[in-house]
């Protein structure tokens, strides 16, 4: 490949953008998480997030969250244009504080689930989901 000045410049800009992008995306999630937790410390025990390691298609990704004793679980997709995915509020007749749904992921990213427990504490779980761009899928 002929390395012209234009090529080199484009590659440099490209890698600079790539380096900044995930950082910006993560910052947006940090703000939303802080808004939910009020800056409180977030533990990691007592919450499960089940998501595929590789999503067959980013348009429909099945996930499941479970946090026994939680009042609310919020799910974020750290790399989506807007990170909020869903907020699950459990009522008195919820048998277990768990829910499954299907979400859209714009690209490979962390999916984060944070629960506010009945005692006011917060716990979180996160998992990276790889989202592939198809080859000849048309």
């Amino acid at each position: 490949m002929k390395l012209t000045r234009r090529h080199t410049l484009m590659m440099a800009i490209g890698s600079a953008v790539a380096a900044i992008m995930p950082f910006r995306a993560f910052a947006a999630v940090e703000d939303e998480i802080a808004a939910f937790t009020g800056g409180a410390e977030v533990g990691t025990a007592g919450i499960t997030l089940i998501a595929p390691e590789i999503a067959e298609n980013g348009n429909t990704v099945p996930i499941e969250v479970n946090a026994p004793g939680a009042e609310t679980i919020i799910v974020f997709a750290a790399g989506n244009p807007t990170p909020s995915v869903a907020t699950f509020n459990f009522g008195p007749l919820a048998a277990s504080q768990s829910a499954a749904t299907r979400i859209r992921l714009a690209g490979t990213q962390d999916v984060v689930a944070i629960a506010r427990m009945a005692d006011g504490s917060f716990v979180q779980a996160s998992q990276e989901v790889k989202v592939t761009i198809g080859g000849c899928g048309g």
Partner: protein
Amino acid sequence: MADNVKPRVRVPRDATAGEEITIKTLISHPMESGQRKDGDGNVIPRSIINRFTCTFNGETVIDVTLEPAISTNPYFEFQAIVPESGTFEFTWYDDDGDVYTDSKDITVG
């Protein structure tokens, strides 16, 4: 008004008192995220189901706030306690103001 929006729910027909059951719900809805552009480059405005609730004999089982990242034809699966016979009410709220509902009776024998 979104066209052709149809809810479907799966609830067992009967249960024992206090039993924990699994409920599955699906509603056909495009969930236009507000991220897409049309052929002329104009953004297609967001139009989604933004809230889903399930109650049993008036008491809340689950209350979900949906964002555009929920897939087309939103699907939810969750667990409910069935203290007595009664009716599950399911409600979906659309950005455009429409409200879709479904209900299922359950018998505690």
